[in-house]
């Protein structure tokens, strides 16, 4: 058989067409395992054209061994990336982010903030009391104003009538 283990071939079909590869394993009468400048993959023997070159390889040789063998006959090997995916960035919740920001602040600052809050609350209470007093005064004045306007209106009517 021409396609024995270690035979250098050129792939003649698919996206790796025109690239060199070596037979690494014989899977059955129709398929072989190839590696080299192509991707390491199962391949139909109809898609391979053998060359006269041969490299010494064991059955099921690794990609590194194929790379070393190809260096002997001045051929390059497809650089394969490691398949370990980078870890996904963790999502930080808004509440966690706030607590993380607040934690590094000093205790003194927190006390100050508390004091400020208490002062603000007292001020707010005072304002409320003032507002109540003012509103009561306003309501009284508004009643007076309403009464006044009611008194004034008929007078105005009279004035206008007199003019006519």
């Amino acid at each position, binding site marked *: 058989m021409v396609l024995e283990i270690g035979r250098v*071939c*050129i*792939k*003649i*079909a*698919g*996206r790796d*067409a*025109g690239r060199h590869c070596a037979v690494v394993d014989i899977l059955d009468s129709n398929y072989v395992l190839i590696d080299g400048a192509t991707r390491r993959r199962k391949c139909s023997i109809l898609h391979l*054209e*053998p*060359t*006269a*070159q041969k490299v010494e390889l064991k059955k099921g040789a690794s990609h590194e061994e194929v790379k070393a063998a190809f260096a002997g006959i001045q051929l390059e090997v497809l650089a394969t990336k490691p398949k370990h995916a980078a870890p996904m960035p963790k999502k930080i919740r808004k509440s966690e982010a706030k607590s993380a920001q607040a934690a590094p602040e000093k205790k003194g600052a927190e006390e100050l903030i508390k004091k400020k809050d208490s002062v603000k609350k007292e001020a707010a209470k005072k304002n409320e009391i003032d507002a109540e007093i003012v509103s009561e005064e306003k309501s009284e004045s508004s009643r007076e104003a309403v009464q006044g306007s009611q008194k004034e209106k008929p007078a105005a009517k009279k004035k206008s009538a007199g003019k006519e």
Partner: protein
Amino acid sequence: MPEPKNRTHSVREIKVKTPGGKVVLQFRRRKPKLAHCSSCRAKLPGIPSVVGRMSSLSRSQRRPERPFAGKLCSACARKVFMQKARSIGASS
């Protein structure tokens, strides 16, 4: 008489029957020819016959992912690769 822009053979005429029963003449732009193999003149599958829209397609949608793609059919490209493999054996 058709409009000047339609007085050319790059515009084809078709007769369309309207709902009212009339037969009217309409003008449609011709589609470009399909790409052909430069060796055996066979039609090349996998290459869209579009005008102006080719740049909006992705690179893998324009032609197969293979050397001589868009120039040779797969059978003719295979012959080229086989010749290359056999020439390596003859030289060494």
